[in-house]
């Protein structure tokens, strides 16, 4: 019974149960009615049997009194015969329903016998004994027939009564059985229909309940139960709408989260870009500053170089001239007195010393000027395709032996971490060697400074050099475990003439030239990381750029150029 409402189902069930009740009741009533009818019939029959039994008694009385009356002619007998006849007639009438023809035959026989007996009585009264006797005999001759017929009919009535009783008993038993079966059947039917109806309601309810439980637990993909029962169908549709709205809300929430995540990513990217931009701007400003400082430095060097050359040349020339003067004037000096000659000797010694000092400091100035000129030279050298590790190793050896030559006590552990299979790089070997010499020299110096600062001599200076292939670029890391660089001077490191070394030990141009060479000439970067009292690390990264300039001119250089 699909698509029926619960109310309709319940009404249907009630009607059905009522029908079953009515039908079973009707059945029982019918059976009871039938029973009562047969009981009535039986009761009737009992009286019939009684009548039948009294038929033979009345007939006995009748035949006696009729004959007696005929013989005695007594009125009493006549009355008794009349009474017996009335009783017999009434009995026969009572049982005539059993077999009317038969009863009529008996009546006729009885009437014939009675009539003959009366005629005999008439004959006797007229004292015709013979006729009376004959008539009486005739009347008596009817008696056995009537007796046997009465017996027959009584017997039949009795048999009929037994049969009726048996039938009635069977009928009653059948009715009881029928009532039991009908009752059980009705009960089963009623229970069955009730169960079916209840089930037709509870099954979709259970399915709905399961769906609700699933949705409550967040399983939104659950299928909706079929909508058979209208009320449950309505609930299912409502649940479906709830589920759909939940799904929609979940999707919206997901979209919102996604949008937020995207926004975050975009914001992070924007922040990163801003950060990069700021860093690039800072680099640009630094590069600009460096470039103008470099140009200024080179320009100053250019202007100073020539006059300085004259100073140096004339100073050294003057030493020779002074010697010449002393040689030429030796005899003249010899004629001077002791005191004056001493004076002349002293002055000439002082002059020679001064000139030597001019030459010495002039050479120092010349070295500085040469370094300064390196700024203007950056970018002018020949690019070559070289093996980076070989170049680094060569520079490291040069720096190490140079340091050993300057200070025989100098020592440091060199930790080489050269990357394997670094593809050749295009660079200006002389200038990059200069950069590496600078970085190694600085590292040696810083590590040695720390060794000097640590009193007990347990400190072990280490300089590690790492090379790496980054694909489009190569990287060289120079790390020392020296004194480190204080934060406040980090941004001055690459400025020309900035130095932490004592006067005369450093020009303050090494890193500024290195910066120029790496950034301007090679388009690379040079960065520094440091912790005071722990380490300093310079990271030089150079783009590989084979494509620039006419590559046909480049000669491949191995370990030695």
């Amino acid at each position, binding site marked *: 019974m699909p698509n029926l409402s619960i109310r309709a189902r319940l009404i249907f069930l009630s009607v059905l149960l009522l029908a079953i009740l009515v039908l079973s009741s009707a059945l029982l009533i019918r059976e009871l009615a039938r029973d009562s009818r047969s009981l009535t019939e039986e009761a009737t029959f009992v009286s019939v049997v009684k009548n039948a039994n009294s038929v033979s008694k009345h007939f006995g009385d009748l035949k006696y009194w009729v004959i007696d009356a005929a013989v005695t002619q007594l009125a009493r007998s006549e009355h008794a015969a009349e009474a017996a006849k009335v009783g017999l007639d009434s009995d026969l009438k009572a049982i005539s329903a059993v077999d009317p023809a038969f009863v009529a035959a008996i009546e006729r026989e009885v009437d014939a016998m009675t009539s003959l007996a009366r005629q005999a009585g008439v004959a006797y009264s007229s004292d015709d004994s013979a006729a009376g006797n004959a008539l009486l005999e005739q009347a008596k001759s009817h008696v056995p027939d009537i007796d046997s017929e009465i017996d027959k009919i009584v017997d039949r009535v009795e048999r009929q009564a037994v049969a009726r009783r048996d039938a009635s008993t069977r009928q009653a038993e059948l009715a009881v059985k029928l009532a039991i079966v009908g009752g059980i059947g009705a009960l089963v039917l009623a229970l069955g229909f009730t169960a079916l109806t209840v089930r037709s309601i509870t099954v979709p309810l259970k399915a709905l309940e399961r769906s609700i439980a699933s949705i409550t637990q967040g399983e939104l993909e659950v299928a909706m139960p079929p909508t058979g029962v209208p009320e449950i169908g309505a609930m299912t549709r409502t649940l479906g709408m709830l589920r759909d709205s939940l799904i929609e809300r979940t999707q919206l929430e997901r979209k919102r989260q996604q949008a937020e995540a995207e926004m975050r990513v975009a914001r992070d990217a924007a922040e990163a870009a801003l950060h990069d931009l700021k860093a690039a701007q800072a680099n640009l400003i630094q590069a600009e500053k460096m470039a103008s400082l470099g140009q200024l430095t080179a320009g100053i060097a*250019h202007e100073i*170089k*020539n006059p*300085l*050359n*004259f100073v*140096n*040349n*004339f100073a*050294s*020339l003057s030493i020779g*001239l002074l010697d010449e003067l002393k040689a030429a004037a030796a005899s003249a000096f010899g004629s001077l007195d002791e005191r004056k000659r001493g004076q002349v000797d002293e002055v000439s010694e002082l002059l020679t010393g001064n000139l030597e000092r001019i030459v010495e400091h*002039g050479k120092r100035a*010349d070295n500085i000027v040469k370094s300064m*000129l390196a700024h203007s*030279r950056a970018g*002018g*050298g*020949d690019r070559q395709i070289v093996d980076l590790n070989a170049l680094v190793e060569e520079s490291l050896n040069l720096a190490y032996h140079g340091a050993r030559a300057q200070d025989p006590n100098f020592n440091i552990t060199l930790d080489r971490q050269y990357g394997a299979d670094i593809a050749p790089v295009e660079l200006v070997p*002389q200038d990059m060697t200069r950069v590496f010499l600078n970085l190694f020299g600085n590292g040696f110096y810083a590590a040695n400074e720390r060794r000097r600062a640590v009193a007990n001599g347990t400190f072990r200076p280490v300089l590690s050099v790492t090379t790496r292939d980054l694909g489009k670029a190569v990287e060289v890391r120079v790390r020392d475990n020296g004194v480190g660089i204080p934060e406040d001077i980090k941004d001055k490191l690459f400025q020309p003439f900035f130095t932490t070394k004592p006067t005369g030990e450093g020009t303050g141009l090494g890193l500024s030239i290195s910066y120029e060479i790496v950034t301007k000439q090679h388009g690379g970067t040079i960065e520094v990381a440091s912790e005071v009292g722990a380490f300093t690390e310079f990271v030089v990264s150079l783009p590989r750029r084979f494509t620039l300039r006419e590559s046909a001119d480049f000669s491949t250089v191995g370990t030695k150029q």
Partner: protein
Amino acid sequence: MTVSILIVDDEPDVAILFRQQFRREAREGAYVLHFALSAAAALETLATDIEPQLIVILSDINMPGMDGLALLREIKMRRPDLPVMMLTAYGDEERRRRAAEYGAAEFLTKPVDFDFLKERLRRLHAQLT
């Protein structure tokens, strides 16, 4: 045998410096020093007969007008056998390379190492005599 040396430099003090440096050699009659303050003046001097025999030209590179390298090429076209030594304050690779390419006999950086220069001149002089 006395020979001539031509020195080309736009700085007049160079003449004074060289005269002082080569005072003894000049006195001994080894060299006669000639000076030109520009490349053009040098080429003019070269066009005249220099007495005694000119054995070498020493030239600066950075000069107003024609520079030392251009002068070198000019001289090499006119007098391919005449040695030319370049003297410069800026001994960078590019100039060194070009000087060698144009046939310079020597490339010396300023301040001039006169002992070295005198040795080179002495050898050149010895080759000729």
